[in-house]
């Protein structure tokens, strides 16, 4: 019986089908390879969500325990810079989507240009984030030995600032990784490696970039906005 199975497979395997240069040997069709990549990328993104989930767990617990410290801490943050960053990042999400779209329709120039715009917006975000960190450094609000904070909840505000640096630092690290990834994809697009049949790398880096944007969509209200009004009320 095993021979029969092998023989049958033999006949099936032999008919020649034009191999697309990007089709890897262990996939049957480009469609199967594409779906495998999309599924793999989404599972990777889910895992990244759990990665930020651990830090958010600490954030939510201490917010319930030390609400006053969270109010003081979040009022320390500069909401204008945070707001601009949000607009910049959602903008870069738009340009990323347009880059993927132009890869779909096969316009090489469109893909490369939109990718460059996305990278520039990413850079703007990182620069603004650098100024925010520098501002913290000037007020020596960097958690650690020389953390100075007047006000009754100094210790607990240090936890807030630690979580702020943890969350936004990790997010900025993912932005840097995304920046490098996009530059590689832009270079491949420039070398005309993509076509309407095969633009998976662009699509995958798009998924990654949108994920990084979604993380910021949650970080911005949680860190900057939610405890803003307590001081007003």
């Amino acid at each position, binding site marked *: *019986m*095993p021979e029969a*199975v*092998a023989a*049958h*497979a*033999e*006949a*099936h*395997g*032999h008919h020649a089908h034009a191999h697309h240069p990007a089709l*890897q*040997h*262990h*996939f*049957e069709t480009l469609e*199967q390879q594409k*779906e*495998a990549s999309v*599924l*793999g990328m989404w*599972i*990777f993104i*889910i*895992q*990244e969500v*759990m*990665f*930020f*989930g*651990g*830090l958010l*767990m*600490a954030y939510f*617990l*201490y917010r319930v*325990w*030390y609400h006053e*410290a969270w109010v003081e801490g979040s009022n320390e943050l500069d909401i204008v810079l945070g707001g601009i960053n949000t607009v910049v990042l959602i903008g870069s999400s738009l340009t990323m989507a347009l880059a993927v779209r132009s890869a779909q329709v096969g316009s090489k120039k469109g893909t490369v240009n939109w990718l460059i715009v996305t990278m520039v917006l990413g850079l703007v975000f990182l620069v603004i984030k650098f100024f925010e960190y520098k501002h913290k450094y000037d007020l020596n609000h960097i*958690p*650690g*030995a020389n*953390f100075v904070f007047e006000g009754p909840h100094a*210790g*607990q505000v*240090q*936890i807030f600032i*630690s*979580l702020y*640096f*943890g969350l936004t630092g990790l997010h900025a690290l993912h932005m840097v990784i995304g920046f490098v990834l996009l530059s590689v994809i832009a270079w491949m697009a420039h070398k005309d490696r993509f076509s309407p049949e095969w633009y998976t790398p662009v699509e995958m880096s798009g998924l990654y970039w949108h994920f990084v944007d979604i993380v910021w969509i949650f970080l911005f209200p949680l860190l900057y906005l939610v405890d803003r009004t307590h001081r007003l009320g």
Partner: protein
Amino acid sequence: MMTPTLPPVTYLNHKYGVMSWLLTKDHKRIGILYMVVVTIAFVLGGVFAAGVRLELTTPQGDIWSADTYNKLFTMHGIAMVFFVLIPAVPAILGNFVLPLMIGAKDVAFPKINLISWYVFVVGFIFTVGAMVFGGVDTGWTFYVPYSSSASNTNVLMTGIGVFITGFSSILTGVNFMVTIHRMRAPGLTWFRLPLLVWALYATSFVQVLGTPVVAITLFMVVLERGLGFGIFNPALGGDPVLFQHLFWFYSHPAVYIMILPPMGIISEVIACFSRKSVFGYSFVAFSSVAIALFGFMVWAHHLFVAGISPYSAMVFSLLSYAVAIPSAVKTFNWAATMHRGAIWWKTPMFFVFGFIGLFLVGGLTGLFLAALGLDVHLHDTYFVVAHFHYIMVGGAIMGYFAGLHYYWPKMTGRMYSDILGKLSALLIFVGFNLTFFPQFILGYLGMPRRYHVYPDEWQVFNVLSSAGASVLAVGYVLPLFYLIYSLFKGEVAGANPWGATGLEWTTQSPPLPENFPGQPIVEEEAYDYHKREIKVA
């Protein structure tokens, strides 16, 4: 029946040279690369265990200093948990056998498969480096505030090492999940899949979704220790119990990463050597998935005395009892599979007998620790040590050895000596019980874990345990010899030495680089011994 000869072209001999191994994208070679590193880690962990047992033969601390002893049991824990138990079956046997079982040429992302091996090796180098430069003494659980403020050993380096190794486990999980979803042979529906594939699928859930949480937790400890961040620091108002919540959120599902794949191997081996399809196939398959999903909801039974509220302790105790049921269902189904089967007493089956004996004790002693009233007395005593060794070493390592001896002919094309195999299974079983059963008694007497010095009246049990450990060591070293001997002098095994069902036994052994000559088509059920005449090649 002519004696089989080694096939001309196999994945081992179609390319030679170190580079062909170090840059391979072939899932079979990557499985063997993992086996090399895991075996080294297993020997390392074993040496540390020998050091611990040596010290505990005497109540006083006269062989090692307290610090050295603390480092020994910590490094034993880290080497065994992160570098042996978690990768053993999924990364070695899983990598090798999964594509063969589903009729694919390779895993979905071969390049990422190689990257995850390199990430594993880099993590291993970091952790061994930490061990060489003075070791780490926080216990494999890295509990805060000791690990973040009070310990002056290489906690940072080990934390980073384990952080990196975590990504290897994540990438393997992603790879397996996509492979099983997208690359099954035509006709291979979900309910025709071998049960090892179901187990690997359930394990990849835990690998992918649990590991990042321990990665971020260790990242926070590294931040707190290195840069003075205050997330868990009680002086600033941080809560050390939060660390335990986040740590065990992964580390309990991690024990299911360690036990589910060996359970899959046991289902395969029992089906083959009972010449019968597994009893209640879909129940065994769904119990794997149930264990993986329920496994995420039970972690705080490690925290019953750590200061969590009694009401939440009740919630977790109830859920811990619920997660024990699928394991019980699996064990009963294995026993029922052997009913009216044709039991072939070969080495893999001996390891399965050992597995069933030890895993039963291990699993059922879990019910003692999930019982709230008892856990107050038993937490952090040798009862817990005995419980998890019965499941990890009795279950996971026994399952790994069963799989190793079952797939060895397929991996190398050679057969090992059956008598020596059975002898090593017996030695491991006897040595194991002699080592860890006295620890149950010690545990109920109240001997705490991680003690360098203990009261004199308990010396007898510790001496028994150390004696058992030496028998166990011999049992583990023996396979090293006869398996390597079989590489050169073993008789040629042929495509299907055990006459088993499954696609992996239809191709030659050792398999072709691209696994199958063509694209195999599957028409029959999973373990259908009736449709095909058995040909013992």
